[in-house]
């Protein structure tokens, strides 16, 4: 990429990302919100985390290409969920998840 292309990409994407990150806060902070809006905001974490997990684990093209490898990711995620329920430890979940993923990947 040329310097001008890098600069253009940086400027446009940074402006957009900064807007995404801050506008909702600027609009919502300090305001007394209706109960419905409060409930909607309270549901965002569950919906967002589930979306992020699904985004990582559910790839139709990867599933079609290698169902066994895709399934090993899902199985590893279930193992992580069990550990998460018992321990609530991010570090332990990450460690167990990677171990399970590696071992299941060898089997797949």
């Amino acid at each position, binding site marked *: *990429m040329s310097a001008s*292309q*890098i600069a253009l*990409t*940086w400027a*446009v*994407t*940074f402006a*957009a*990302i*900064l807007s*995404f*990150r*801050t*506008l*909702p*806060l600027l609009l*919502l*902070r300090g305001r007394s*919100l209706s109960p*419905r809006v*409060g*409930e*909607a*905001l*309270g*549901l*965002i*974490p*569950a*919906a*967002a*985390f*589930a*979306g*992020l*997990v*699904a*985004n*990582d684990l*559910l*790839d*139709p093209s990867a599933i079609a290409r290698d169902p066994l490898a895709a399934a090993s*990711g899902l199985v*590893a*995620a279930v193992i*992580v*969920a069990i*550990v*998460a*329920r018992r321990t*609530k430890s*991010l570090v332990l*979940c*990450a*460690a*167990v*998840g*990677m171990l399970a*993923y590696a071992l299941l990947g060898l089997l797949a």
Partner: protein
Amino acid sequence: MASKEGGNGTVGRRLAYVFPHALPVVLAYLVIGIPCGVLEAQIGFGPLLALAFSSTFYTGAGQFMLPQMVLAGMPLPTTIASIVLVSSRQLLYSAGLAPYLGKGSRLDAFALAATVTDESFGVNLDRFAGDAGWDVRDGLLLNLLCMSAWALANAAGVLVGGMVSLPTALMSFGMTSIFVCLLLGQLHDGSTYVAALVSALLVLVCKLADLQGAAVLLGAAGGVVCGLAWQAWGRSGGIRS
């Protein structure tokens, strides 16, 4: 775990308080950031540019997309639009954190929002919801620790080039595992289960419809709507939420 004596702890005490919570993400970023830097080197980035870019751009998926799309010969407007679209999920993070950022200065709240991304959003939300002592400056420090790790790893990746081979898929699953743990912590009633399930299904539908860029945003939005509908149904005498 270190305490920080409420909101007036010294920087050192605050760092000791925050760092253990940032550590899982910092470690993951240090590994995943390096291959990102390797890719950036292929499109002309130097280590200082990678450092500055990663400190401002700071969106993992989007930052990986840039060199990949450039190397694939995609037109620049298409590349920029794709990165903006995949980054639109950041709207959710600011909205999700807004209820916790009312206290403290507006500048601190703005800085926290401006430096948040997927993983630091998750950890911050977890701390704000479960730790009465966690304040906006703790959240900002956590964000800055994570961002610094990401930026340094990108710069290191540019420097090492293709000399180092890292199991990125494995480290990436480490981050997925972190999200699974954070998700489980948010599932406490019927509406949250509905929101999560619908979100996941919609992400799959979006991917099948070749809408990968907006999948997380659309999925989460749909999940929130369905979760609200479940709550309304519960209030009207349907299944308890």
